[in-house]
């Protein structure tokens, strides 16, 4: 049985089901991160003193990761644009680059975390580190999830391109929406945790 409205648009919404589905999911994600940002504000404003992020965390590494993640957003959108231009080979290159850049982000984060642990700085050390590890840890899980989906579309999932290219392009667009959201969250996490 075919899944309805994967390619054709619904009359009532003017969208295919995948598109509305991913946006509803992203709305729930906004609330998930929103709850943690609210916790951050509550803990910080209720604290008699609060360290500046750059006195504990590594700003150059985080800046590098910001550049890496923004670049991966561009390669992601270029992967989708390649499919729209009917250039599957170029899609593979851009999608591969997106997955690779996600990997670079995780490697840099690994060095950041291991350096903190080496210095005896853990989530239990203080409130600042507790919220830092929670927010960046949750974000990192999202990077891993996005990478897994993108790697699937780069590899085995790309078979769909041969049988139903429009559906495949829609799927890549939706996984792209999630990936851009992950980038968007980092754009706010970076100054909040590292620079203020």
């Amino acid at each position, binding site marked *: 049985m075919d899944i309805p409205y994967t390619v054709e648009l619904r009359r009532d*919404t*003017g*969208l295919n089901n995948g*598109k*509305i589905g991913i*946006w*509803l999911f992203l*709305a729930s994600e*906004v*609330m998930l991160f*929103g*709850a943690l*940002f*609210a*916790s951050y*504000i*509550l803990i910080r*404003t*209720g604290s008699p003193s609060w360290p500046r992020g*750059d006195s504990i965390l590594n*700003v150059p590494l985080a*800046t590098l990761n*910001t*550049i890496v993640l*923004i*670049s991966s*957003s*561009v390669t*992601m*959108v*270029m992967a989708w*644009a390649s499919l*729209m*231009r009917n250039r599957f080979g170029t899609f593979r290159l851009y999608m591969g680059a997106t997955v690779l850049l996600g990997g670079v982000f995780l490697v840099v984060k690994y060095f950041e975390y291991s350096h903190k642990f080496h210095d005896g700085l853990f989530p239990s050390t203080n409130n600042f580190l507790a919220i830092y590890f929670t927010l960046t840890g949750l974000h990192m899980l999202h990077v891993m999830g996005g990478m897994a989906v993108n790697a699937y579309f780069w590899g085995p999932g790309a078979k769909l391109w041969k049988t139903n290219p429009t559906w495949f392009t829609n799927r890549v667009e939706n996984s*792209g*929406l999630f990936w*851009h*959201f992950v*980038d*968007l969250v980092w*754009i*706010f996490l*970076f*100054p*909040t945790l590292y*620079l*203020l």
Partner: protein
Amino acid sequence: MTDHAATSDHAADIDKHVRIYITVFVALMVLTIITVLIARVHLPIHLAVTVAMLVAGIKGTLVACYFMHLISERKLIYAVLALTVVFFVALLTLPVLTHHDGYWIH
């Protein structure tokens, strides 16, 4: 002939999109550098938070509007996001209100 014209129109449209993506990428890089440079000035905390969130807001808007194509999306998506914004703002406002004696929450 018509099909060919439609295809070349579509290709030109995507080419235009790609040029916009590259422009947005450059803008995001510049804004990232600005974010880091401003942090080095060590502004008073209220001003530093305002400036940092303003720059992050501009970057976020660029990503949402152009990479996520929100600039030309269907009404239903805008409705979903408008509702999300209302609850998100409420969520962030609640802890702030707890610190104002004599306000809503003590």
